[in-house]
């Protein structure tokens, strides 16, 4: 079995490979290695996972019945697309009813995760138009790899 020095070198070498998981048995000693951004704290078999908190996604519902449009006209780009960040009061669509155009404005800050309706689709009152990620609480969890937030 490796001594601590050898083990440290061994683990260090593994880190730079794309091996995700490794189990090793040698003469009654077992080593279990799994790549994670989290530091394991107990024996060889221990693995600690920090739960990613459930995202609180907010459905954005239609304030009225009519025909939903993503953009001002077919010559214009959509007001928002998936991935866009929005702020309260920002125009995210328009609904036409009885030849009157009504602006649809966001009431939250966040990111458009899903666009639920097509351009020119008839919508009823309360129908889900967008799903928005308000992006709260990420700072406290601190576990999202690579988000850069």
């Amino acid at each position: 079995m490796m001594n601590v020095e050898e083990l440290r070198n061994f683990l260090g070498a593994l880190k730079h490979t794309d091996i995700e998981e490794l189990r090793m048995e040698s003469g009654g000693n077992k080593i279990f290695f799994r790549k994670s951004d989290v530091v394991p704290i107990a024996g060889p078999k221990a693995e600690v996972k920090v739960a990613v908190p459930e995202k609180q996604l907010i459905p954005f519902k239609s304030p009225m019945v009519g025909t939903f449009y993503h953009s001002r006209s077919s010559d214009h780009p959509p007001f928002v697309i998936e991935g866009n960040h929005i702020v309260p009061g920002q125009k995210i669509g328009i609904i036409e009813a009885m030849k009157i155009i009504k602006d649809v404005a966001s009431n939250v800050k966040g990111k458009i995760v899903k666009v639920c309706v097509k351009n020119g689709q008839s919508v009823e009152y309360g129908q889900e138009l967008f799903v928005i990620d308000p992006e709260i609480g990420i700072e406290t969890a601190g576990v999202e790899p690579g988000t850069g937030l």
Partner: protein
Amino acid sequence: MFKKILIANRGEIACRVIRACHELGIKTVAIHSEIDRDSLHVKTADESICIGPNPAAESYLNIPSIISAAEISGADAIHPGYGFLAENTYFAEVCESCGIKFIGPSKESIEKMGDKIAARKLMQKYGVPVIPGSEGAVVADDPDLFKLAKKIGYPIIVKATAGGGGKGMRVVVTEEALKNAIAMAQVEAKAAFGNEVVYIEKYIEEPHHIEFQILGDARGKVVYLPERDCSIQRRHQKLVEESPSPFIDPSLRRKMGKAARHAAEAVNYVTVGTVEFLVDKYKHFYFMEMNTRIQVEHPVTEMITGLDLVKEQIKLAAGERLGFDSKDIEIRCHAIECRINAEDPDRDFMPSPGKVTQFIAPGGPGIRVDSHLYAGYTIPSFYDSLLAKVIASGANRNEAIIRMQRALGEMTIEGVKTTAQLHKRIMANDYFHKGDVATDFLPKYIFGGE
């Protein structure tokens, strides 16, 4: 004929209209508020659209939302049912300007009959008897007051022009009490309606509320059907209706029917409507008002004539001609309707919304139930309390009463309080059996002078 009709209503009448459309091969669009998502009319229509939040003002009375729903669904006509926007001239106008047919009379007909004072004048012009009264407002120190009152004949009732619900009213039996009654009524009217204008009318003693269903086509032909007696009321709300009226003989029926027809012709009425009269104990009849819509109690007339009034209404709105005359209509049976409301009679008829845990509708010969109830349905608190209409018909009035008693006994509604028990009492009442039914029936014979 229309391809698709949007029903701008809810509850039992929406279900009724959807049924007529299905029989006519017309597609149906139900509109609903959020809380009505599980309502029966939404389940039975071909399509449904949620048009707003629960309050009626933001949903069933919300004209832009309703028109928008008609546009996106491609409906070519809107049926307004009764209540809500059924007699709203602005709504009729908006439908017209959007190229959607409003299934009802023209906005002019609605307007002419909506203004009570103007309607009175129009009726007089067309020879329809109206309740004798003042031409307009009266005041206590009017020099011609006593002359006018004498001409009308005592007893006289002082009424508020802006009024309703029994407020701002005073009955005057002798000349001495008249000035004071006017003053008191004015004070009450000012407090209740912010408008102290009052007028006077002959007070009809023990009136019977008798109404005539009429149909009119686009060519000006109007037909009247046998009368309905709606005298059993509580606070001016009808509870029980029947046809024919035990108070009306064939000769009076002909006279009143003709008057009803003239009333409808006076406003060029198309589709279906009802002319209401008050009849005194001497069998003098007087025009009260015209209801320019399909009414709650229309099934009673359907039972005795065999007609489908909602189908007729749709066909007339589509421009079809009336294919029959009044004389072609036979009275085939006697029919009675009981309106079952979600109200607690033991607590002054307090509304009783909630979840209906069990609903067993009565059935068998001569029984019809118009309802939107089902077990598991939650009655919302935002709208009216009508749960079901139970209609019983029989070869004669007696059989109709017995069948209604049977039906009320069979009917089970659990989970909410209803007025079924009150109807059982009415059906068991001796005076009701005798046909002694005027608008004071309930306080006199059931509530014992309340």
